[in-house]
């Protein structure tokens, strides 16, 4: 721990002491969740400051019906399904893309939507479907790639649209009101695109502080300190403690691209149901690149596993250790829920960094909670 971080920790303890009551804040982003575990920040926090993880892991919130559609498409003869590697092991109703690939299906792992487009160019006889997952950080890449496909007439390319928006999910959590939250630590790199001011509606409607922070220990501590300071002073504002990277207005080129290629639509989130105006669909002029339309496929319904409590985990209602399957029936090698699949999922982070070793030992030491 650097001197600067130690000083921030001291300040945080002082502020939390002044507030006295329990303070609960949500780190929305999966990358924050992992960084908080990895760096041991949780163990440095005052006893009355509780961090809960939010629905900010795109792998975890991709609806099962979208995975099922990906499996259905990848199983069709001749189809190449291109996906970010994170999605390979997410369970659908009938297995995962990884299992399907083992049976001979053409499932290709790509690092970029553009690589999927290159696959389509290289295989003009094969329909190439790109699994478009991710929040606003990732969606502009898909938008730019669709424009490129349109410009170059790559008609065997299509996208299974699963992109989601962060702010509507945060609002939905507050609207539901069943988890007491004093504020949000907002995702750094989503904010690079949408800009810090995008969180203003949350502040305006719900009067909760939102602080945009980076992913290094000092940046996270600065973010927590800014949040607790607002709580202590009874304020609620958007604050950006990642100013070297995040601006108030975001990346205007990327935002314009999103507006041009996509329309905002209601979207299903895994375990959370349909959240109004929380996802992206292709705009009418680019709809021919929509995989569901091209293959005349309708989305089904999600069917949760009876043991899995991922839905409660990603809304801050339960900690992974409270799930009966955690580290018993469900572990990273045999995941039941998506939060255990993604290395940025809350359950996977708990499993890796915060699990008491030994059979049946799932509870986390009191000092770390």
């Amino acid at each position, binding site marked *: 721990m650097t001197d600067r971080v130690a000083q921030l920790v001291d300040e945080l303890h002082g502020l939390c002491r002044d507030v006295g009551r329990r303070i609960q804040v949500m780190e929305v982003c999966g990358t924050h969740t992992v960084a908080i575990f990895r760096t041991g920040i949780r163990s440095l926090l005052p006893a009355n400051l509780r961090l809960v993880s939010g629905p900010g892991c795109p792998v975890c919130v991709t609806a099962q019906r979208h995975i099922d559609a990906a499996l259905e498409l990848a199983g069709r003869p001749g189809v190449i399904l291109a996906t970010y590697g*994170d999605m*390979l092991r997410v369970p659908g109703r009938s297995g995962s893309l990884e299992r399907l690939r083992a049976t001979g299906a053409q499932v290709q*792992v790509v690092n970029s*939507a553009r690589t999927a487009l290159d696959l389509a160019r290289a295989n003009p006889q094969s329909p190439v479907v790109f699994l478009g997952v*991710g929040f606003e950080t990732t969606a502009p*890449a898909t938008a730019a790639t669709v424009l490129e496909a349109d410009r170059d007439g790559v008609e065997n390319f299509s996208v299974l649209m699963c992109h989601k928006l962060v702010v509507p999910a945060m609002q939905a959590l507050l609207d539901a009101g069943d988890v007491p939250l004093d504020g949000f630590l907002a995702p750094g790199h989503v904010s690079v695109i949408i800009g810090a001011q995008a969180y203003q509606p949350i502040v305006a409607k719900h009067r909760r502080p939102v602080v945009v922070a980076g992913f290094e220990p000092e940046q996270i501590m600065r973010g927590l300190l800014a949040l607790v300071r607002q709580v202590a002073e009874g304020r609620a504002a958007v604050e950006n403690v990642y100013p070297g*990277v995040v601006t108030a207005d975001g990346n205007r*080129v*990327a935002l314009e691209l999103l507006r041009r290629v996509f329309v905002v639509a209601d979207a299903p989130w895994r375990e959370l149901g349909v959240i109004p105006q929380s996802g992206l669909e292709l705009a009418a002029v680019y709809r021919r690149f929509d995989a569901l339309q091209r293959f005349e496929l309708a989305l089904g319904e999600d069917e949760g596993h009876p043991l899995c409590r991922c839905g409660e985990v990603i809304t801050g209602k339960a900690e992974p250790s409270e799930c009966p399957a955690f580290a018993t029936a469900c572990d990273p090698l045999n995941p039941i829920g998506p939060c255990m699949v993604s*290395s940025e999922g809350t359950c996977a982070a708990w499993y890796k960094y915060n699990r008491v070793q030994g059979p049946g030992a799932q509870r986390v030491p009191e000092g770390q909670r």
Partner: protein
Amino acid sequence: MCLAVPGKVIECRGDEAVVDLQGSTLRVSRVLTPEADVGSWVLVHAGFAIAQLDEREALETWDYLRQILATEPADSERETQTTDQAPRGEGSPA
């Protein structure tokens, strides 16, 4: 998955740029950061430069990423790595 890594632009050709990610190079699109030029530092995510940032911020981020790469126990699953491990991994939107 939403983590982007900083890189320095070392070559530009139209909408494409080659960025140096502290030793490894990657061809990325700069359509989202059209003003980025040779010598600029950019944040790279999913094959796209998504923002420019200053050198000090970029190098501090790399100090942190290097610490992670040095101390992180290897994941058993190769292809489920996320963006933060992208400099050494396959299949993540870096």
